[in-house]
């Protein structure tokens, strides 16, 4: 019996529909949902590998209080009393929630309602602050509301797509695939990629502008001035000021392409081409992502882009809009419920606090914005916030200056963490650890980058004592005495309330309006087809087996009316400014952090999939070859990246894809998977003054070779003991099909490698199932632990990386089967014996000549006597005891 469930991918903001099929043995298989309008059946590598990630390995299955397993009652009581007591003693602003774009809209809604309407503080912020709060702020300045005007269809309809600060091919692969397919269908469509790095996305562009880090405003101001000089005019508010700020008389001579090109660090002719294409192409979509948002000028960058679209009136039309694409599956849903500390609820601000309180009928209401992510952790550090509840996110990895956040949490009186994993860098600091339901077990909705609300449907039961986030929060709320506001039958009821709030006293002043969904029955909710907001009227919404009739509006603002006070869109005058912290003599390089194709966030999910881990198995730093030479580091070696805030030690990749003067390091690796790859510790905590979004794309950094005296790797069927890893200076962990691989290195070679290696692998000294090859003088040591013929673990140590064997052959030894004799003999060599050197069973033991060797020689050299064999191979010429066997082989060969 198989069952198939339509649900939504939990990774990026593309929001692909997936079908999850359970066969009779509860084995999960995943496919793209052909009925989902966002992906139309496509999935990327991460989505395709989702089935690899739904196992219970490493799952948190029970509540834990103070490091000890506890029952729910104890845990909930501790959270409720902890928060209530703190509020009673220090006021509502002494507590905070730090939530996540991984939460479902229903979870998010409850969190926001509890904090803002019942606790009465706006101290709820989200990891969306780190990825797209600049887009939110930019949208509000330009449109009056955080609204993405277009949809993915616009990318296909556009004649020019400009990707800014977006490695779409890796970070939003299905959108990228749709774009590529459209270009294939119509080769006249042009793609421009604006990114300091020559990414995989840039490879396929018609034009790549590798701008200097942080110069986006200069570039788009230049474009705005160029457009203004070439006949585009606007009467919109702020238009004249924006053009004036961008144009002649300002620091950047907008009309002068050469000046702009120099400021931006790109080729004149390329810049001219881009300006000409943009000016000439009516159907232009500008997609921007973290490369724009994660900046101390992030909001200005967003508006610099939007300015160009407003000036050219390329908004609200098919194939024409500025398009923020989000990083997380439900960053948009979080924005909709108001899960950022800078908004109140349902796209209403604090000026509408009374409205919201009236709707909630709540005892309190937050009337002032709360703490933004970094401010929140600073307040924890300062002791102002004394109780924090972190849900579905891992800030010790994802925040900048992450060790400061760690120190803050370490001294915070109450840290509650809801997560699906037993160990994350953040969960390890929790006073109370609550087991949350994971993707495959959750029921609710998410909203993707194109305003599409999709159902996430559970297809696996919740394991252990795991519970839905909304249910956990409702229980806590009730225990805090807020029973009235937190009794829900299920997620559908929460969704209806959320939809009703968007419609509450909404006379069209808020674009976000889900009035048409406020009365969904349970069944309607269950079968809700992907639906784009706004949804103001009730219509049949069930997916009926075919592509459903879509609700909502594909292109907003087509009528030129905006949810601003004056009903018009606003251009915003912006002036270029450099990154908050400039490079210096001590920190001469610009460190940029970001995603890679096959990992997601802090790897809690993707690291479970060997095929995903295989794409880029190790945390790395990319550097231009000229810089590598300058700083004395080599490709494949290890290097330490140091900033004024922290450091990381990573594998070096030298590549001309990287601009000179820039470094790139992935954001994913953390203390669960590496000793010192948590790049967030090195990122500067500078933020955009408007959005509060951190400047991950530019931290002044220095790079130096890591002075390792030894390198090595370990293969183990089971992960090593944490305590054993503590003794290894540098390590990273790579999941494999039936093993875990560790790359290791150290700055002081252990004197007794044998004892050390046994300690690492947890193999007792008396255990004789231990193979080893030692050359202490050379500093090499290789060992393997074998149990009943099965390879359990292997460790290889050498003074240089080149003296270690290839990893791939060894990986193949972990078959789940007992090793063959040949594999056992070869395992420490790290590679198979040369096949032709297979001598066969020994015939002459004096000279080590085997049966196969003799047979080969008889055949190839035409040997016809025992003496001839002896002359050719020495066989039989010492003790002579094998001569009869050689004679026998000769007669065999003769007969053959």
């Amino acid at each position, binding site marked *: 019996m198989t069952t198939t469930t339509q649900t939504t991918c939990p990774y990026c903001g593309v929001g692909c529909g997936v079908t999850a099929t359970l066969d009779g043995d509860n084995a999960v298989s995943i496919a793209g949902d052909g009925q989902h309008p966002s992906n139309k059946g496509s999935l990327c590598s991460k989505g395709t590998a989702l089935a690899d990630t739904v196992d219970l390995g490493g799952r948190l299955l029970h509540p834990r209080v103070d490091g000890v397993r506890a029952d729910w009652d104890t845990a909930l009581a501790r959270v409720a009393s902890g928060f209530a007591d703190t509020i009673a003693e220090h006021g509502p602003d002494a507590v905070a929630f730090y939530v996540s774009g991984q939460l479902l809209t229903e979870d998010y809604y409850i969190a926001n309602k509890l904090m803002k309407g019942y606790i009465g503080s706006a101290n709820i912020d989200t990891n969306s602050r780190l990825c797209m709060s600049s887009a939110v702020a930019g949208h509000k300045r330009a449109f009056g509301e955080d609204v993405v005007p277009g949809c993915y269809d616009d990318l296909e309809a556009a004649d020019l797509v400009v990707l800014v600060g977006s490695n779409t091919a890796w970070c939003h692969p299905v959108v990228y695939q749709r774009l590529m397919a459209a270009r294939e269908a119509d080769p006249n469509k042009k793609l421009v990629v604006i990114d300091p790095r020559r990414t995989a996305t840039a490879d396929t562009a018609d034009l790549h502008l590798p701008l200097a880090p942080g110069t986006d405003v200069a570039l788009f101001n230049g474009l705005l001035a160029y457009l203004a000089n070439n006949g585009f005019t606007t009467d919109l508010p702020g238009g004249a000021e924006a053009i004036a700020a961008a144009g002649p008389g300002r620091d950047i001579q907008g009309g002068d392409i050469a000046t702009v090109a120099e400021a931006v660090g790109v080729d004149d002719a390329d810049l001219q081409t881009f300006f000409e294409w943009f000016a000439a192409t009516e159907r232009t979509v500008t997609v921007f992502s973290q490369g724009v948002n994660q900046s101390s000028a992030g909001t200005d960058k967003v508006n610099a882009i939007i300015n160009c679209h407003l000036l050219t009136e390329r908004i609200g039309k098919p194939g024409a809009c500025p398009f923020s694409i989000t990083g997380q599956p439900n960053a948009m849903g979080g924005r909709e419920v108001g899960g950022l500390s800078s908004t109140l609820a349902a796209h209403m601000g604090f000026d509408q606090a009374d409205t919201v309180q009236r709707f909630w009928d709540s005892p309190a209401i937050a009337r002032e914005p709360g703490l933004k992510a970094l401010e929140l952790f600073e307040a924890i550090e300062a002791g102002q916030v004394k109780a924090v509840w972190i849900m579905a996110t891992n800030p010790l990895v994802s925040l900048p200056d992450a060790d400061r956040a760690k120190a803050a949490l370490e001294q915070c009186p109450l840290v509650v963490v809801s997560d699906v994993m037993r160990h994350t860098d953040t969960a390890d600091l929790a006073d109370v650890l609550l087991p949350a339901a994971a993707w495959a077990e959750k029921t609710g909705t998410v909203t993707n980058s194109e305003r599409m609300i999709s159902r996430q449907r559970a297809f696996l039961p919740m394991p252990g004592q795991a519970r839905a986030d909304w249910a956990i929060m409702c229980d806590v709320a009730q225990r805090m005495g807020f029973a009235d506001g937190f009794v829900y039958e299920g997620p559908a009821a929460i969704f209806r309330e959320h939809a009703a709030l968007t419609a509450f006293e909404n006379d069209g002043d808020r674009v976000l309006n889900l009035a048409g969904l406020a009365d969904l029955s349970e069944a309607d909710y269950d079968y809700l087809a992907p639906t784009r907001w706004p949804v103001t009227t009730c219509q049949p919404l069930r997916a009926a087996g075919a592509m459903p009739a879509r609700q909502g509006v594909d292109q907003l603002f087509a009528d030129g009316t905006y949810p601003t006070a004056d009903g018009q869109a606003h251009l915003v005058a912006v002036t270029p400014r450099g990154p908050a912290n400039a490079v210096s003599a001590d920190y001469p390089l610009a460190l940029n952090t970001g995603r890679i194709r096959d990992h997601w966030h802090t790897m809690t999910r993707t690291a479970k999939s060997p095929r995903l881990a295989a794409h880029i198995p190790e945390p790395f730093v990319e550097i231009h070859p000229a810089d590598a030479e300058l700083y004395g580091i080599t490709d494949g070696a290890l290097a330490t990246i140091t900033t004024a805030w922290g450091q990381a030690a990573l594998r070096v990749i030298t590549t001309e894809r990287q601009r000179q003067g820039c470094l790139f390091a992935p954001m994913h690796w953390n203390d669960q998977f590496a000793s010192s790859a948590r790049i967030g510790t090195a990122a500067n905590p500078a933020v955009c003054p408007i959005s509060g979004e951190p400047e991950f794309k530019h931290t002044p950094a220095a790079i130096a070779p890591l002075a390792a005296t030894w390198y090595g790797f370990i293969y183990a069927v089971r992960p090593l003991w944490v305590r054993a890893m503590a003794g290894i200076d540098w390590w990273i962990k790579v999941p494999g099909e039936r093993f875990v691989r560790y790359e290791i290195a150290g700055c002081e070679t252990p004197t007794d490698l044998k004892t050390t290696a046994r300690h690492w692998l947890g193999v007792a000294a008396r255990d*004789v*199932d*231990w*193979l*080893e*090859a*030692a*050359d*202490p*003088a*050379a500093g*090499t040591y290789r060992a393997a632990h*074998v149990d009943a013929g099965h390879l359990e673990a292997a460790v290889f140590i*050498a003074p240089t990386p080149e*003296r270690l064997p290839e990893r791939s052959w060894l990986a193949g030894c972990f078959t789940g089967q007992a090793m063959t004799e040949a594999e*056992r*003999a*070869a395992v*420490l*060599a790290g*590679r198979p*014996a*040369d*096949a*032709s*050197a*297979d*001598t066969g069973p*020994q015939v002459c*033991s*004096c*000279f*080590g*000549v*085997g049966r*196969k*060797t003799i*047979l*080969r020689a*008889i*055949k*190839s050299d035409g040997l016809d006597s025992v003496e001839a064999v002896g002359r050719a191979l020495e066989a039989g010429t*010492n*003790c*002579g*005891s094998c001569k009869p066997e050689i004679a026998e082989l000769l007669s*065999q*060969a003769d007969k*053959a």
Partner: protein
Amino acid sequence: MHDNHQPKLDLVVIGNGMAGLRVIEDLLEIAPERYNIIVFGAEPHASYNRIMLSPVLAGDKAFADIQIHDRRWYEANGITLYTGEAVATIDRRRRMVISAEGREVGYDRLVLATGSRPFIIPVPGHDRPGVISFRDITDVDDMVKASENGGKAVVIGGGLLGLEAAYGLHKRGMDVTIVHLMDQLMERQLDPAAAALLQHSLAQRGLSFRMGAETAAITGDDAGHVNGLRFKDADDSTLDADLVVMAVGIRPNIDLAKASGLHCDKGIVVNDTMQTYDPRIYAVGECVEHRKAVYGLVAPLWDQAKVCANHLAWRGHSQYDGSVTATQLKVTGIDMYSAGDFADDEAADTLTYADIRRGVYKRIVLREGRIAGVVLYGDTRDGPWYFKHMQAGTDVSAFRDLLLFGKAFVETGADETADEHDAEAA
């Protein structure tokens, strides 16, 4: 090129063992017409492969299997063979040898290949009936006979020969204890780790050990026949024995050479062309001392015989530089290989491989990047390959990291593989 019509010279070879015979074989190959060859052998047999005595004792081979040449071969090659007839005297002035039976044979050239004698520890009772050594086929016959009634055997000496004797007697049904002075077996060829593996493996086969035990006396019954051993220890402990085999080493057999005034030290001293202090007299094999070294293994003997034969054939001046030796233990199912010097000191780099569960151990000692010694246990197939590199003085630095894994991992693509299937099918 010498004159083929020159009258033949008389070459007398004293010793019909492997060394003497090898000189003759080599000589027949390169200068068959040069000499009348006369051979004296003290043993009664034509010739046999002495290093295969252990398999005969163990019953793995019969005496017929290890015979090298029968009398017809000597006849066919015009060699005069006197067996069971030791030479008593060499009259160097008259260039004459005189046998124990009084036969006088003149020589132009003489080769001494008198081999070695087992060393007998001079403890009280060492000459009792039932105390034997392990040197020749007679000893093997005696042991086989003694084992026919089962009983207890004691082998004194945990070296190569002692272990092979012990294993052979065990296979023939005796209850065997090995008594060894040192705490480890084969201390000259093995390091402690390999020796422990070996002892474990032999113990599993049913052999018993008294390690670190020094024999005080060999005791006897009323008839004088051996009945046990008494040890030099605090409580004068004893061990019952129906048979005692002394296998504590060999000494070069130099009595004849010494008596005839040839310079001897530990052995008969020879130069690099295997000549003694009397240039008409050569010496080869275990009786020889060359550059202070005395050998007890077969490989050096081949090298010496070749040089000796060349010189006798007037084939210029190939010379003997000494041998690096390798040892293997001929005990079924036990693979052990040892060669060179594996002492561990400051200047030596020691590489080890161990797979104790599978009974594999390897130790390679490098000096200045070259193999100085190798001990292999359990997997000896690369022994000769290491030995070759050791002899050649190959700088192994380039493949040092794979050295322990042997030829198959270091030499790749050396052979074509396409034929393999055919060859196997054949």
